[in-house]
């Protein structure tokens, strides 16, 4: 029985984490966007507006659940749950520290991709269930975008998997630090197994993975419908896209899913390319920084630090770049990202055969 209790506790902890992260990201996004636009952002609720996110959530909790008369009620009610659960289940296979992973699946990354593809279905459900032409248009755009961008994402992830020879995220992480038992070569030549640190990350083990990371990062922005790929929820054209009709707690769930998705794709990128919970500090002679800064606490610290940096990058990009047009979005995916990612996969195969 304890066995199941642990599972439930881990699931609760992950849920609490996503909720807290969403609150934090909400506040930081508002602040960062404000600073970039020479504003101050929320200042009134709490010191420097720090309780603004809580106030927003409280406001959302009080709101009425509105179901449009013409809506397909079952689909309308189920959609936010499916959207959130599909993202939330993805957290199950992510490694947080050495030996600390909710579910060590040997299919980890594949599982996450399968689960994330369910989100598409939830979005279609929301769009159809709302019975609103803007919602339907938004969900159509969203699905077209997500299905297309899954290809470059998947292929660039595959190029990492080919280098790492594993689908298990924990093993992929271990292979990028000092805890590994295999040889690690910086740029394929210099053995850095004992040195570790930033030199052992996947992007530095095989330099073409830097391009793969760029592809992954851009495609992941599109996967979580963030600007500049936010045409599914373009406020100015579609008044919010597939979640137009949602209010109150249901809207909060969609919001939660969006921000959790940001964290999730950021963390997958960090785990696959940027060393996961491995420390960026290398061992230099007798100064064994890498050995000192590896452990459960340090692991959580490093992965949070790296992922939050990636999330900050996502926010930064959102408030800098304007929105793509639909045709630009599609041609960018199919004409630039997909061929490039195939090239990366090809190089990965050759690299694996010749350099490792």
């Amino acid at each position, binding site marked *: 029985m304890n066995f199941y209790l642990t599972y439930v506790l881990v699931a609760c902890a992950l849920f609490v984490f996503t909720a807290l992260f969403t609150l934090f990201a909400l506040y930081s996004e508002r602040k960062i966007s404000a600073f970039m636009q020479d504003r101050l952002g929320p200042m009134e609720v709490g010191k420097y507006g720090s309780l603004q996110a809580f106030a927003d959530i409280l406001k959302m909790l009080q709101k009425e659940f509105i179901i449009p008369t013409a809506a*397909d009620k*079952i*689909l309308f009610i189920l959609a936010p749950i499916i959207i959130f659960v599909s993202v939330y289940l993805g957290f199950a296979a992510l490694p947080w520290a050495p030996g600390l992973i909710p579910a060590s*699946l*040997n*299919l980890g990354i*594949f*599982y996450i*991709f*399968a*689960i994330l*593809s*369910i989100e*598409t*279905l939830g979005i*279609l*459900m929301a*769009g*159809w269930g709302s019975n609103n032409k803007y919602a*339907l248009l938004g969900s*159509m755009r969203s*699905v*077209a975008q997500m*299905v297309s961008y*899954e290809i470059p994402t998947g292929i660039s992830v595959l190029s990492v998997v080919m280098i790492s020879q594993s*689908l298990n995220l924990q093993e992929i992480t271990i292979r990028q630090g000092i805890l590994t038992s295999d040889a690690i070569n910086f740029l394929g030549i210099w053995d850095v197994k004992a040195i570790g640190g930033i030199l052992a990350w996947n992007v530095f083990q095989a330099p073409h993975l830097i391009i793969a990371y760029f592809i992954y990062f851009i495609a992941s922005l599109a996967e979580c419908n963030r600007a500049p790929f936010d045409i599914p929820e373009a406020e100015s054209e579609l008044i919010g896209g597939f979640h137009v009709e949602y209010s109150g707690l249901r809207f909060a769930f969609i919001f939660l899913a969006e921000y959790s998705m940001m964290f999730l794709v950021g963390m997958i990128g960090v785990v696959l390319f940027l060393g996961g919970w491995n420390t960026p500090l290398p061992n230099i002679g007798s100064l064994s920084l890498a050995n000192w800064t590896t452990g459960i606490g340090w692991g959580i610290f490093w992965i949070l630090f790296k992922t939050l940096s990636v999330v900050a990058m996502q926010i930064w990009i959102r408030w800098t770049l304007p929105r793509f047009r639909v045709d630009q979005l599609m041609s960018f995916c199919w004409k630039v990202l997909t061929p490039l990612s195939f090239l990366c996969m090809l190089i990965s195969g050759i690299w694996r055969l010749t350099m490792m």
Partner: protein
Amino acid sequence: MNTEQLIFYFFSALLLTSALMVVSIQNLVRSIFLFFVSLFSLAALYIFALADFIAITQVVIYVGGVLVLMLFAFMLSNKELLNSLQPIKKSFKFYQLIGIFICLAFLFVLVSLNLQIDFSNLSWIKSSNPIMESDNTTHTIGILSMTRYLLPFEVLSVFLLMALIGAAHLARKGKKT
């Protein structure tokens, strides 16, 4: 009955009820969303047959691909098609009765055959070494698809390319006449 069996029977019941509802429900869009439930619970059954890779492939391809494609095909097509997809009359037709009869006959044959065989005493099953829960089936599948099943694998990839080109050709807008 232990937990494993409980979960197995729960998912198989979910699969069969949702499949029945998919074929009996009138609202087509809802029935496609229900199709998702049955495909997902089918993936769960694959895991009980110790085929985790197949299960996740099922989710990726069916849920992420086929279902979305089906819904997309609908919603992209014009409103007339949507209206014609939702029949108004609900009366029970004679041909449906025949259909049910044929299906029940098929079911009877299949199940009775199934019950006649004592699977645990079959010689080839006895002599085989079954996949254990600790095995890494992904590893095996990877190696096998590059060695023993290389030819079907390659043929499949060519077929996929054909399907891709064919579907794109069929779905594109013809020249305006």
